[in-house]
């Protein structure tokens, strides 16, 4: 065991204001780092998972916001006959906000049997039967339910859409935890308009041997001269295109994550340099008593590590607790990017805190270890 542990802890506590400020600065930086990391993971999951590459989304040509895409629902039966297609799911989408927002509510109306077949939902409360049996019933994703404090049996209204919560679900796809599923025909007829027969998008499921790009081209060619032309992309590409502005922003924010790491490095290095300069004589006394130069180096590194690891753990735990409890997501044009906290990310955050602590302590540790004892004893 490290015999100087009490000395290291007490030395940090001696300058508690400085220590607390450094630890909190580290914690905030790691908190931001984890937020950025989790939204990046959410974006990655949206565009790169296997299902995203094997499912096609048919959307109205040159339309972006789900409110403006209106495809004839009977396109589904035409598409279903194309080679390589195993099923087509008509989906009506309604969102209260087409712009990028942290509190968008996205409704997706699907035929109940298709919802059951193609979405891996696990009901946390409520029951499937009562959803199927009621026209204005809704299954609410756990993240939305958490944010809006909803429970089975509640009635809520967003925009002109009023639904009764018949179940709260958890999905295997994190982004779906931010959706509200309703019956297709309910969403087509609500808000005082009759959009029966039109859908926002068609979700096309492919056979294992089908070439997604070839099928997409066939679908667009089929309707090229029809009443509504289509644009068909893989689900991943569709989502990436839809949130492209947001993705660009998230890509930029990625650099802010690195900036946070740099900030911690300079913050902790400054604190450690100050601590070493304050204790030049004390380190000389320790060396006089027989602590090796390497031992002094280790003491300084230990202090620096303790600062970053405590700050890192606080920041990581804080961010994970917040992200898990709020189910935060950001949505644009009906596509949601769920913040995805994970053990991986937590481990990465703590590892970064550790490495930064190590690096921040190197120069001051070396300086402390190299000092001449006699000269240092005359100091201050």
């Amino acid at each position: 065991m490290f015999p100087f542990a009490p000395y290291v802890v007490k030395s940090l506590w001696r300058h508690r204001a400085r220590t607390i400020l450094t630890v909190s600065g580290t914690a905030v930086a790691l908190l931001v780092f984890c937020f950025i990391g989790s939204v990046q993971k959410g974006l990655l999951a949206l565009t790169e998972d296997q299902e995203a590459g094997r499912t096609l989304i048919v959307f109205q040509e040159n339309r972006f916001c789900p409110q403006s895409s209106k495809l004839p629902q009977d396109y589904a039966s035409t598409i279903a006959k194309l080679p390589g297609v195993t099923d087509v799911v008509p989906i009506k989408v309604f969102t209260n906000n087409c712009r990028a927002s942290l509190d968008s509510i996205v409704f997706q109306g699907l035929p109940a049997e298709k919802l059951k077949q193609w979405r891996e939902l696990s009901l946390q409360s409520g029951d499937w039967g009562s959803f199927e049996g009621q026209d204005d019933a809704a299954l609410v994703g756990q993240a939305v339910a958490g944010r809006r404090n909803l429970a089975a049996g509640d009635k809520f209204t967003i925009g002109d859409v009023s639904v009764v919560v018949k179940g709260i679900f958890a999905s295997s796809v994190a982004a779906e935890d931010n959706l509200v599923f309703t019956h297709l025909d309910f969403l087509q007829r609500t808000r005082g308009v009759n959009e029966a027969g039109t859908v926002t998008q068609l979700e096309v499921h492919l056979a294992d041997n089908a070439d997604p790009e070839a099928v997409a081209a066939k679908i667009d060619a089929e309707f090229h001269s029809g009443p509504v032309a289509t644009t068909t992309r893989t689900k991943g590409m569709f989502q990436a295109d839809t949130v492209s502005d947001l993705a660009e922003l998230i890509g930029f924010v990625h650099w802010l994550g690195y900036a946070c790491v740099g900030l911690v490095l300079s913050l902790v290095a400054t604190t450690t340099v100050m601590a070493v300069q304050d204790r030049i004589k004390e380190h000389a006394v320790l060396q006089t008593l027989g602590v090796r130069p390497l031992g002094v180096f280790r003491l300084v590194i230990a202090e620096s590590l303790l600062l970053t690891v405590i700050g890192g753990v606080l920041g990581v735990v804080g961010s994970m607790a917040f992200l898990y409890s709020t189910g935060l997501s950001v949505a644009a044009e009906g596509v949601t990017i769920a913040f995805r906290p994970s053990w991986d990310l937590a481990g990465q955050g703590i590892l970064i805190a550790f490495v930064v602590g190590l690096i921040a302590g190197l120069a001051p540790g070396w300086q402390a270890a190299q000092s001449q004892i006699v000269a240092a004893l005359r100091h201050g």
Partner: protein
Amino acid sequence: MSLVEVINVTKEYANGEETIRPLDGVSLTIEQGDFASLMGASGSGKSTLLNLIAGIDLVTSGEIIVADTDITRLSRGKLADWRAANIGYIFQTHNLIPVLTAYENVELPLVLLPMTAAERRKRVQIALEAVDLTSRATHYPRQMSGGQEQRVGIARAIVANPTIVVADEPTGSLDDETTEQILELLGRVNQELGMTLLMVTHDADAGSRAKRRIRLERGRLIENGQETSVHTLRTA
């Protein structure tokens, strides 16, 4: 063989373009159980000589042999290990670690040595009893008087039962009454515990408490306090 042999030691350092030589070819020996005072005016080289014998400064030339180890040939790391096992250092301003209690300060040299926790506890208790400070074991330096701090410093210096205890002006920052107590305590360390003591002082009264007086002037030995020089010993 003597406990400490200082053989033709010179110490130089550069100050700009000028070379300062605080010690110039000093040779002396210190025997086991000695209580020697190292005296001289400011700048005579007495503290430099003490620091060289304590292994916290490096000679420019010459040899210092302590208990058969030529410490001038040791690397910095080995020298630190050697100090931990062989040197008890009493500072003028006691230099206790402010965040540690009296007990923890005294225990500090022992955590560097291979020793069980029980053995450490026992030794710290004995050292604190020797300086009559068991009741202050849990006190921090800021909660003690200057004299008490210096006694903790002495306990810290003797706790590991070192080969030699060196003291650099141990009463330099104390009042007369406390100086008397500390000198008495150092005398007991030498007589009752049998420890070899080398004390730098510029105070003639303090110096007279030692069994032997060594005097330096401008980096040279002018009074050895004994008849036989180390060169005589070597050639005999």
